[in-house]
């Protein structure tokens, strides 16, 4: 009998530790594992490095003082351009950052997923991304072209948190919306992989098979969490809760207390 990997959000958080590098799936304010983020807000975890195509996951973790460093290409709420909590954290100097081009984030996760020290990419050349992160190096093609490229180092994750529409109890997980984002890559780049989902279903119900983004060897824990991406979108199960997002974007400290309680 295959393993039953169902657990609670609190059990997921209990497997995390201070100082870890946590990758968070989704994109902007879309299909973020907000129930898992909320469980972190309620925990004693701190000094996290967060890797994300950032939305309110980043803003909330920064607001709650859980973050030491954010690795990001952007932080945005989509229908609201800027995340005020992230802005506050940056403008007060409360966090450090490693700012990368969006494609560099994918490239670094892919290098980690493939157990490579780096992968070459053109993005970053000439930009201040390289100037602000002197650990980033360029490399020359060993072939006749001699092209200079960025040697994007692997972004290794201690844990990945993602939210999908459906999963079975073994960790096969399905997206039903228009875009898989990079949730599979986050899982491949991580040591521990946790997927929350709207509903746990029988394996046979994960159809069509092309929508199964994660297979069970990519997943360590399954958390059934209806509404677990809210207030971000999780189509077709639900759209973004724009009213709640507007409330979040007021950046009122009371919101954080209410949200985490």
């Amino acid at each position: 009998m295959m393993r039953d990997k169902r657990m609670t959000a609190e059990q997921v958080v209990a497997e995390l530790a201070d100082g870890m590098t946590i990758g968070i799936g989704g994109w902007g304010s879309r299909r973020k594992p907000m129930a898992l983020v909320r469980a972190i807000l309620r925990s004693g975890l701190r000094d996290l490095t967060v890797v994300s195509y950032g939305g309110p996951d980043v803003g909330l973790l920064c607001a709650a003082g859980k973050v030491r460093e954010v690795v990001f290409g952007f932080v945005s709420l989509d229908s609201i351009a800027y995340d005020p909590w992230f802005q506050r954290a940056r403008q007060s100097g409360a966090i450090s950052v490693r700012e990368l081009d969006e494609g560099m984030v994918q490239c670094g996760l892919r290098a980690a997923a493939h157990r490579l020290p780096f992968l070459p990419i053109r993005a970053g050349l000439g930009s201040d991304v390289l100037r602000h992160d002197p650990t980033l190096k360029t490399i020359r093609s060993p072939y006749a072209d001699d092209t200079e490229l960025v040697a994007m180092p692997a972004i290794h994750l201690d844990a990945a948190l993602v939210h999908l529409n459906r999963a079975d109890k073994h960790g096969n997980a399905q997206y039903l919306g228009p875009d898989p984002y990079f949730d599979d890559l986050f899982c491949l780049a991580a040591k521990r992989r946790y997927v929350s989902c709207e509903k746990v279903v029988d394996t046979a119900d994960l159809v069509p098979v092309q929508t199964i983004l994660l297979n069970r060897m990519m997943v360590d824990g399954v958390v059934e969490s209806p509404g677990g991406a809210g207030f971000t979108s999780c189509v077709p199960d639900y759209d973004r809760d724009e009213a709640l997002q507007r409330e979040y974007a007021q950046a009122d400290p009371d919101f954080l207390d209410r949200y985490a309680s």
Partner: protein
Amino acid sequence: MTLADLCAAACADLFRGDGEILASPMGTLPTVGARLARLTSEPDLLLSDGEAYLLADTPALGERGRVEGWLPYRMVFDVLANGRRHVVMGANQIDQYGNQNISCIGPHEQPTRQLLGVRGAPGNTVNHRTSYWVPRHSPRVFVGKVDMVSGVGYDKDAGPFHDIHRVVTNLAVLDFVTPDHRMRLVSVHPGVSVAEVQAATGFELVVEDVSETRQPTDEELKLLAELDPKGLREREVRA
């Protein structure tokens, strides 16, 4: 005809000659412009709905119509690296060589104002044609030096695919077709003087043969009314 109509036509002209590539407009005017281009000069352009679908029809803003393809973000990154793409981005700051900033204002360690982040600007600008749309042309946007180079300009070693095409603003159209790739004034919008554009620019523009930005045709005005019946374009740029 409104200023927004004129800017929409100028944005449409950005795509002239592009052929069968992906147009990636950011913002309302570039989006309307790309759709106008597909209905007129560039019928082979590919258009995305801004999420994961390619549009078979050329519908009004907010509509989807029929879908001709699937282009999730991971595939956008592939198209970007492959080069068959023309992006029109915004700019919180842009300098005379076309370096653009959408990341932050002030020192990167602790900015005075955090913006979006560099997003895909570093990758876009070294991989394929890039244009910019600035709805409020001012010395705060057109600066001597940007605080964080996100999109890469002509004074950097940006490789063989670097191609900053044009900048369209509420006052003028500009490009970089000069011996040292400094920004040049191509055309001023009707009723705008060269001096006004220079005064709104925080560096010296190359000014040679400046023309007047063309007005949209009657057919284009009719198409614009169909593409944007709610007049969303008027909210992004005001006379």
